């Protein structure tokens, strides 16, 4: 490797853009654009453009570390792996696999995630989960239940074929920027763009109809829209009859959700709700794009079911320009879920309770008694640790202290563990609490596959070697497995992929050529049942739904208010979210000077009316307070939010000290989008 141009997939978001890394004398020296990438067409958002700043950062973990007092000592790999095996092994032995937890990484490759959950389950632990729990768990449960699959139904560029795009709870302009291109192309051909969001984001700038919704009232809005559609006779009766069940109950439940009542609850004008409903229903091909604004609520599963209801009563699915797009956040969260790093699913979304699952995997893995039940979700692992039941954890590529709600709870949880091993590329806040830290490889230092939000499985190549003594995650996991008595051999990513293909039907048809060309878009299939007559069509649900009887399930949901209501002490609604220049808990972007220059610190957006009522001027330091704690932030007086609502970006430490850990009962996802707060001068 003296001088080369290596094709990689971006490590940041779920769009899965490709670009080239220029390598000179073994160092990544620059980025070159990839104009023939099918989704990004050569473009990159600011994070992708700055990707090498994080990759080459001097603060990368380069040595295995062992806790010593309040600090860490560098140790050899031999010692580190022995300690990790001892710590995990001891807990497994003394407390049983039910009390050991594994947190996989939505940033790691499919191969790494697959091996990680194989490790956990082979050791008898059902407690393997990943950060999808915090973002699209509502989608996995809600959409899975309604239409049998929980992924984007159409390729991203198909949005350009829509005649109406309903965006709700997504700010793709900042966070999935290439998606904006396709939405704009649709708009330039006359598509009506509807955006529902509490904030007037750059995504809302594209809207023909902007619904500035009160946080946490999505079900009311959607039911209101559906009420209009039913009343005005805009439902697609033939689609309902042939492909769904449950409409009658829904129609009955919608009676009370008049546009007027919906307007009262959501603070969206009645006329706009009616216009939006008509636009969505009347257009020949409508699509729904959604993200955290819908999922991160105590009613997250209901919110997603309501979206499914909407598209089903209009029949906007299974054709070009239609469908539903749950925009996945991480570069490989789709893949991590496909690989079964969710406690309620084995790879390929097989249920642990199904006897065939444990038989098939048991045979393939050579393990007699694999866990046949659901274990603890990521937040439940923290609950269990705090209560003294979960005793050890192995965390790969995640920083739950900064991504979980109510950070204090996670700190207490990790503190309570007997043993914590963290495998990461930077010394995150979570790594600081570990007993053993294992330095891992970043995305450009390994090869393997990532699955993007449009179900595109793409191969990413190794451009450079990891710094210092950092090693590849596949190697680390296999070494630990070996020391815990699972006779694993070291294997390449390609070999792991071969094993994945043999066990995960949707990945079965992948070939190396496909991956090299355009990536491979998986089509949902259960035991070879292809819902599409045109095999290889990237559009899901063209003919049937992968549900037991092939029909989609419409079920009524009712509006329930958010978990925490405002009060005289906390009169403002706090909503949290992302900005385009940073990424999640910030381990990579906070170490990228180009990105830090754009947004250097925590700020709070508040409406001019709320600011002046408190004597707050733009730029001054203020204190944001909830029942959980306080955080200092720079005031940003802005018309982006409505009066009574404030916004904090969660990339900066402190934001999640304030959020609320109350969860959707089915998806177990926390309500990161609504809390009650007060803001005062600092």
């Amino acid at each position, binding site marked *: 490797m003296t001088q080369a141009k290596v094709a990689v997939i971006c490590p940041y978001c779920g769009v899965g853009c490709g670009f080239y890394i220029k390598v000179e004398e073994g160092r990544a020296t620059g980025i070159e654009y990839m104009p023939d990438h099918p989704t*990004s067409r050569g473009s*990159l958002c*600011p994070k992708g453009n700055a990707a090498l700043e994080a990759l080459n950062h001097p603060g990368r973990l380069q040595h295995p570390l062992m806790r010593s007092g309040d600090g860490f000592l560098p140790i050899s790999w031999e010692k580190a792996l022995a300690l990790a095996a001892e710590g995990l092994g001891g807990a497994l032995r003394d407390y049983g696999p039910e009390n050991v937890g594994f947190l996989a990484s939505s940033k790691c490759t499919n191969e790494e995630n697959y091996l990680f959950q194989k490790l956990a389950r082979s050791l008898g632990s059902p407690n393997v989960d990943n950060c999808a729990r915090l973002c699209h768990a509502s989608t996995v449960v809600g959409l899975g239940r309604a239409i049998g699959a929980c992924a984007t139904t159409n390729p991203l560029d198909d949005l350009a074929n829509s005649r109406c795009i309903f965006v709700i709870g997504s700010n793709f*302009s*900042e966070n999935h*920027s290439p998606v*904006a291109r396709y939405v704009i192309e649709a708009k330039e051909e006359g598509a009506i763009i509807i955006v529902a969001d509490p904030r007037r984001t750059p995504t809302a700038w594209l809207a023909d109809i902007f619904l500035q919704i009160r946080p946490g009232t999505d079900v009311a809005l959607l039911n209101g829209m559906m009420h209009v559609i039913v009343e005005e006779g805009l439902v697609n009766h033939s689609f309902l009859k042939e492909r769904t069940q449950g409409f009658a109950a829904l129609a009955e439940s919608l009676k009370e959700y008049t546009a007027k009542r919906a307007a009262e609850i959501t603070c969206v004008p009645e006329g706009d709700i009616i216009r939006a409903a008509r636009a969505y229903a009347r257009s020949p091909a409508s699509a729904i794009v959604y993200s955290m604004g819908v999922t991160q609520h105590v009613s997250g599963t209901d919110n997603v079911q309501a979206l499914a209801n909407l598209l089903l009563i209009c029949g906007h699915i299974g054709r070009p320009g239609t469908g539903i797009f749950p925009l996945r956040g991480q570069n490989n969260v789709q893949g991590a879920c496909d690989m079964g790093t969710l406690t309620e699913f084995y790879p390929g979304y097989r249920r642990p309770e199904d006897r065939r699952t444990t038989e098939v995997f048991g045979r393939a893995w050579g393990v007699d008694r694999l866990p046949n039940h659901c274990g603890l979700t990521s937040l439940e692992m923290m609950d269990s640790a705090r209560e003294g039941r979960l005793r050890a954890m192995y965390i790969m590529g995640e920083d739950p202290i900064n991504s979980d709600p109510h950070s204090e709870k996670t700190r207490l949880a990790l503190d309570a563990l007997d043993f914590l091993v963290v495998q990461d590329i930077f010394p995150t806040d979570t790594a600081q609490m570990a007993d053993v830290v294992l330095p891992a490889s970043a995305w450009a230092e390994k090869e393997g596959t990532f699955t993007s939000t449009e179900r595109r499985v793409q191969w990413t190549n190794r451009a450079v070697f990891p710094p210092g003594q950092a090693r590849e995650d596949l190697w680390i996991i296999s070494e630990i497995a070996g020391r815990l008595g699972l006779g694993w051999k070291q294997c390449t990513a390609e070999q792991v992929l071969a094993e994945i293909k043999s066990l995960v039907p949707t990945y079965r048809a992948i070939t190396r050529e496909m991956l090299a060309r355009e990536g491979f878009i998986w089509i949902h299939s259960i035991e070879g049942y292809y819902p599409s007559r045109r095999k290889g069509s990237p559009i899901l649900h063209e003919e049937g739904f992968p549900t037991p009887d092939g029909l989609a399930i419409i079920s009524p949901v009712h509006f329930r208010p958010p978990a925490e209501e405002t009060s005289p002490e906390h009169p403002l609604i706090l909503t949290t979210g992302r900005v*385009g220049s940073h990424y999640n808990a910030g381990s990579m972007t906070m170490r990228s000077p*180009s990105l830090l220059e754009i947004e250097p610190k925590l700020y709070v957006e508040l409406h001019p009316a709320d600011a002046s009522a408190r004597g707050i001027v733009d730029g001054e330091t203020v204190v944001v307070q909830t029942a959980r704690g306080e955080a200092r932030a720079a005031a940003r007086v802005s018309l982006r939010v409505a009066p009574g609502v404030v916004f904090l970006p969660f990339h900066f430490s402190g934001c999640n000290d304030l959020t609320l850990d109350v969860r959707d009962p089915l998806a177990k996802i926390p309500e990161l989008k609504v809390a009650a707060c007060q803001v005062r001068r600092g």
Partner: protein
Amino acid sequence: MSVYVDMERCIACHACLVACKQRHAGVSNISLQIVEERAAAPQLCRQCERPACMAVCPSQALVQEDAVIAFHIEKCTGCELCLLACPFGVVWSDKLVHKCDLCSGDPACVATCPTQALLGTFQEAVVRIRSRAAKTLQRGLR
């Protein structure tokens, strides 16, 4: 030639800014401001046909070379008159003048923009704007 902006497509993502920084040792020659939470447009050197910056430069450090107003650092005295003269405020200085140099012919901002809001030729920009307007009118007819 300069980089043209299709304002209806700018989503204020800042990709252009960061791409420019990567090509110019950490300094961006593009600036982006969001106006009234309604719109944004990247601002960069217009490579004016009659450049004010070139006119005021006392040492001929700014010279028209084909499509670009080139900056020759060896002649720069750091007087910053160009900064004052530019009507668009797109010449920056930290005692060293920074302005768009079109990346020697392949502007990074144009290549990286996720929505193709930045275009490399006048024709592309104007043709798109005009055809967009025509399409809107045409829809009104049906």
